[in-house]
């Protein structure tokens, strides 16, 4: 059983449209364990690091403007196969083409205003959680319903 970490960023479009609870609920109900969450304003340093793969693109300034339009909500969550599960419930980046039933398919219309960022791989999950959270902001704890979320991977079940 390999537990992975993911970082979720609830973006300004979701914050300003009153969709924080809706998005948060989807991760909770899916079975992720939220180990850290906080509302913060993103600064240049974090954004440059997080979007380093896009920094030479013409639309980078637009992304920065969008991501700093309001605070964001950060969620650090764990789960077995968390990154693939997270990718699936977020849906495709282009929200207008994302499947119904996904967060983007249900809640958004555009590519930039697509409600969430979710770590897309196991490696990125580790890197991104460490980038946005200090150690003392992450909490390991037992979830009462964990055994029923992973009945096939718990030895004691």
């Amino acid at each position, binding site marked *: 059983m390999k537990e992975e970490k993911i970082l979720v960023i609830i973006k300004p479009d979701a914050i300003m449209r009153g969709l924080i*609870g809706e998005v948060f609920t989807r991760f909770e109900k899916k079975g992720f364990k939220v180990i850290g969450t906080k509302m913060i304003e993103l600064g240049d340093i974090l954004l440059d690091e997080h979007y380093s793969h896009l920094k030479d693109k013409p639309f980078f300034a637009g992304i920065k403007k969008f991501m700093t339009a309001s*605070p964001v909500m950060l969620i650090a969550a764990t789960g077995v196969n968390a990154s693939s599960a997270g990718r699936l419930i977020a849906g495709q980046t282009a929200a207008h083409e994302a499947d119904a039933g996904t967060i983007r398919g249900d809640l958004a219309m555009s590519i930039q205003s697509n409600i969430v960022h979710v770590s897309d791989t196991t490696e990125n999950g580790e890197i991104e959680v460490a980038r946005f959270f200090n150690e003392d902001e992450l909490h390991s704890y037992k979830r009462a319903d964990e055994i029923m979320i992973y009945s096939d991977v718990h030895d004691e079940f």
Partner: protein
Amino acid sequence: MEGFCYDIDMASNVSKNISLVLIKPDGVQRSLVGNMINRFEQRGLKIVALKMMVPTVSQCKEHYNKDDNWFIEKGEGIINNLKKDNQEIKREAIEYGKDIIRNIVQYMTGGPIVAIVLEGHAAAEVVSAMVGSTEPLSADIGTIRGDFTIDSYYLSTVDKRAVRNLIHCSENNQESLREQKIWFTELEIIDYSTAQERILYDVSADGHWKI
């Protein structure tokens, strides 16, 4: 509207009232964080600070802020109930009163909570009404406690533990300001405005949406 930001034009600043909310360990455990946030958002309140944390004993004691008179009063109530039940009284009233806070500390420090500052018109009063009465069993249907949980004073007293009621909220704006300082630093409170606030509060919003 400047870029993505909304300038809210209004004469009064009562929309800046706040409420300090703690989603307690049972609320986190039962995956109700999103649902509770959703309710507050739908009502028109704005989150201006939020974080997950494990409370310390000293934070809890400062938060509940009870003095000896309170301990004695509550303790005497407990002694009366014990006498009615023909049980032996082993300690002073003040000790029984202090048990209430000891149990709450045990409950609150037992796992992560989510602390939130909500902002909006009459925020503390609005949130109190949405949360419902302290004892879940007698809380109105439609409130957070009335909809999601079932614990009672009787059950928690018999089992010698705190009432598990999912969420704390401040009683009024003044209490909110006091409690906010226990859980958040000034730097963690964020100033911004949302589209919803403009519709709720802006003096020139009426008739603004015609093309």
